[in-house]
């Protein structure tokens, strides 16, 4: 089995990709996906550390994360959908009605 540091590096890389996606992309859906990617990068870190230290704490936290992510996905997609119906766009820069 590969050493835990490999998993940690993979997790960090995935997280950075997610961060970059959130910061750089303008498509709301892509931003949303990037957030999911960050969540899952963290999940990966949790389970791998859980395995390495022989503790189930990390795995149980991952369940919570997945639950929250599922709920979030439902709400987030709902908002995106509603916004798209109103504004006919998924570009974050154009969704600026509340901006000063």
């Amino acid at each position, binding site marked *: 089995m590969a050493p835990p540091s490999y998993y940690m590096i993979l997790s960090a890389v995935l997280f950075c990709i997610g*961060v970059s996606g*959130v*910061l750089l992309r303008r498509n709301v859906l892509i931003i949303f996906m990037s957030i999911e990617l960050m969540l899952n990068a963290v999940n990966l870190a949790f389970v791998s550390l859980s395995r390495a230290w022989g503790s189930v704490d990390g795995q149980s936290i991952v369940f919570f994360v997945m639950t929250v992510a599922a709920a979030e996905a439902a709400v987030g997609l709902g908002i995106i959908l509603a916004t798209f119906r109103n504004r006919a766009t998924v570009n*974050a820069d154009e969704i*600026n009605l509340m*901006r*000063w």
Partner: protein
Amino acid sequence: MAEHFPLGLILLFPAIGVVFNLFVGQRAGRTTVGIVGAGVIGAAFVVGAVAFGRLLGLPTGGALTSTLWPWIEAGAFKVDVALRFDALTAVMVLVVSGVGMLIHIYSSGYMAEDGDYARFFTYMNLFVLSMLTLVLADNLLLMFVGWEGVGLCSYLLIAFWYTNPEYAYNGRKAFIVNRVGDAAFILGILTTVWVGATHGLWTLNFVELRQHIAWFGPATATMICVLLFIGATGKSAQIPLYIWLPDAMVGPTPVSALIHAATMVTAGVYMVARLNFLYLLSPDAMELVATVGTITCIFAATIAITQPDIKRVLAYSTISQLGYMFLAVGVGAFSAGIFHLMTHAFFKSLLFLCAGSVIHGMGGEQDMNKMGGLASKMPITCTTMWIATLAIAAVPPFAGFFSKDMILSGAYTSGHFGLWLLGLITAGFTGLYMFRLMFMTFHGESRVEPERAHHLHESPPVMTLPLMALALLCVIGGWVQLPEGWLWGGSFSRFLSGSVGIFKPALEASDLGLSILSLAVSLTGALIAYIFYIRYPGLPTYLAWRAKAIYQLLLEKYYIDQIYDALVSRPLFFIAQYVLFKGLDYYTIDGLVNGTGTTVEASGDAVRRFETGNVQHYALIYLIGAVGIAAFYLYLVMR
């Protein structure tokens, strides 16, 4: 020595007059206002006369006192509103209230047709009240209250017809010029406190200052005296601050009489006489007072010779006569100065009231070139004015003879020959300009404009009666001080000696010889006036044409107003407009205020750039922060 007496009454009556005329005067009838206005001054005069009677019962140097209430108590420093009535104050109170009362009576006739009757009497009463406060005060600070009070009233009264911009300007001029002197006066008071305080003497009381006079060295005394004297040059119209007085005549004529005779201008002479113990410590200051007085004396007299305006001649005459008074107090002849102050109050108020009567009869005309031959039309005015003229020209036995003689003999016997000579020459000028005024106004051919001629009339009795009363004083007023050795000779000086000491001549001189000499000079001046204005009426015009430069110089009053304008007013206005207003106020202070606003706005505008409203930007900043914190903890762990 000091006996209690309700001196507050002397001030109370004029104060009642002020309050009454101010609040009730508009509704009360003119008669009531006139009676109250003159009556309260008369009441003050009666109280003053009673106090004078009590004072005569005391030994020389005695005084009546009355402490009204404590005023300032700051640590050891203590000033009361306290009054003191000694010989010097007695003379001043009687002159101020007595002459003031006559002027008030006259005013009720002179101002009869003016719309602002009550306001006029309010100011007049306040004027007398301030002057009485000034002379009754037993300390410098209360004296200063009166000092400022007369300054205020002169402003109010000179600018009485304030709708005329020129009159309002002249009122402001009087006020501001006086303010210059008053600033020095305040410094003088502060220096007195400062010097006294270094010796633990926290007082401004005249009696206490006099007791501890040894603590004042010659240098500090000189400083105090010079500062106070600068204040006096403002109030008493001496070089260099005399310029307000000639312009002050735009006020109603009784006001001029009040300013020139009873109140205001005599304040400076009184102040020097009151502080004689301080001035005697400083020969330098005395020398300055005498020199400034003498120069003013001859300077103003030469201007008076050419002025065509009847009131302007009298105004310069006042400046000149005040110069005599300062000459007297400057050479140490304090009682002579006060004596001349008193006789001057009689004849100068009479001269002004007569001039007012002439102006009244002429329907407002003041130019003597448009008068002449009025003697037959206004016999009472003419006669009384002649008496005043003889008094001011120092013709015996009229009042001015004795006082001017005393001053000149004081100047001579104290060894000031130069000043004495100038004073003597001025006596000639005095005769010249006064007789010129009389000849041009009352005698010779009438130059009155026809439309004014037919309603030319003598003034009503309410105006002529005060003239007669003052004329009587002009005749007998000088007899209180006959030359030493004659009947009750020197009684006035002896009466005053408790307050101002006795004049000690440095050398012997024949009083009679000096008197005859000064009389001869005066009469020469009068004779020249006669030749010029009665015998050969064309001569003045010819002479003015031949000596055009000198004539023009005198007519334009040595261009002093223009010089002051160029040297003082314009630079001040320039500084005010461009340095203070534009430079300091507009650009610096407003700049600071506006700059603060602009800075806040600009920095807000700059910081605003961070608030893009773009969530991704916030997230980036958040990320940077998070990475920073993580790096920090990592650094701590790794170390």
